[in-house]
């Protein structure tokens, strides 16, 4: 049985708004094993993003346990325009995680060029700013920056929703290729059932902060148990 990378036990998460504490996540538990892609599907406002921020330690208003066995996971954001620092060059963005880990300058440069090539960008974009790239290229930079520190688990929060259909397909292929080549595991979040079907091994359905159904992809899609999952499948075109 592959090593478990992430264990989440009875997680409750809250959102503090002007003193009032609103509970967003209710008793969420799941595990991710090495090499596994866990697809999380749910509509906007169901707590998907709160979950990803809780796992990454950005949101501390939580109780319950989050056990990282595979080191600090990295994140790929939905909107490539706002997740990359507009004032920095692509090269410096890629080297940032290595710089924080104390990797020497020369080696950082080599690894950055290597990463650009791996995600299908030519090394000339090293000097360019995110502003000068297309949506698809920017998302490739986002992915490169996430995996350059060789994390075992990458959390992708709606990584393709903001892209055009043809570009979306290319980025999904990239995610699947990187998974095979680098043995990465993903927590892949999307509201699009078809995208989830294409990339996930196991699927988790979330409604209003609760996990309503979990299971291998084909079981969940072929004979969904929970009415909400059925509703999502019927609504998907």
């Amino acid at each position: 049985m592959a090593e478990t990378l992430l264990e989440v036990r009875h997680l409750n998460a809250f959102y503090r708004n002007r003193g009032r504490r609103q509970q967003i996540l209710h008793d969420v538990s799941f595990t991710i094993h090495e090499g596994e892609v866990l697809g999380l599907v749910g509509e906007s406002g169901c707590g998907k993003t709160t979950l990803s921020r809780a796992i990454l330690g950005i949101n501390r208003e939580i109780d319950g346990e989050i056990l990282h066995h595979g080191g600090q996971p990295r994140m790929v954001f939905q909107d490539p325009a706002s997740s990359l620092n507009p004032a920095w060059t692509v090269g410096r963005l890629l080297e940032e995680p290595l710089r924080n880990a104390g990797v020497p300058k020369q080696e950082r440069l080599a690894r950055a060029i290597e990463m650009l090539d791996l995600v299908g960008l030519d090394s000339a974009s090293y000097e360019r700013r995110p502003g000068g790239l297309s949506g698809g290229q920017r998302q490739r930079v986002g992915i490169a920056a996430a995996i350059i520190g060789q994390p075992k688990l990458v959390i992708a929060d709606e990584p393709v929703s903001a892209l055009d259909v043809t570009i979306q397909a290319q980025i999904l292929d990239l995610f699947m290729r990187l998974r095979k080549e680098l043995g990465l595991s993903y927590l892949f979040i999307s509201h699009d059932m078809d995208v989830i079907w294409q990339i996930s091994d196991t699927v988790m359905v979330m409604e209003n902060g609760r996990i309503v159904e979990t299971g291998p992809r084909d079981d969940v899609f072929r004979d969904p148990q929970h009415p909400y999952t059925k509703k999502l499948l019927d609504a998907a075109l």
Partner: protein
Amino acid sequence: MKRRNWTLRIGGCVAAVMVALILLGTVWTPYDPNALAGAEKSMAPCLAHLFGTDNFGRDLFSRVLEGGRTSLLIAFCTVAIGGVCGTVIGSLTGYFGGLVDEVLMRFNDSVSAFPNILLALVCVSIFGTGKYKIILVLGVLFIPSFARIVRGEFARERSRDYVENARIMGAGPFRVMFAHILPNVKTVLLSSVAIGFNNAVLAEAGMSFLSMGVQPPDASLGRMLAEAQGSLFTMPWYALSTGCFMVLLILGFSLLGQGLQEQEREL
């Protein structure tokens, strides 16, 4: 090809010319600002005396340059004190938030209920007048307005994805603030410094006009305007020349500030 940012260009030039003139004044002035030339009393502006002379025969252009120097110095130091402290306080409270941020925000709101000049006058009445006291008083009084602007910028940027991404990538809080956020708020800070400079010039001029600011023998544009107002009937050019010089100085920096803001929007 980026649309030419005229506001920035004109503002930059006017401000540069005025500052250059004043700096030149520190080294050379057409006449000795305090020399009394009895024969040339109350002369209207002419080639010999660009701004004319006052009732003691002193060359007004030289005096305006000298007065401008004091105003420039005070405004520069005020913005330096207020800007630096304001930026430090604003960035910390904006980024870290929490109780300190709330308390300082409330304090900032109640202090801003007092008009700056009113506070300055009160402080001056307690600590006394004079160039260096004015710098200290105005400098401290400008901290809240700078802090408020900087806090707003940092609080806005802190919640954006690229900042969260930076924290996930292991960057410490200070690296996030100064390496990640600062380059994105740089132009807003610069434009508020330019606008702060104007407010400082206006505040100093106002106080000196009320003879509560710079005291003789230091000259200041505000004091000169007060003197000029006395002889408005006989020498209108005295007030007009001093006033226009000050307006040009302020116009330069306000266009500069606005130009930087337009630059920001185009980025």
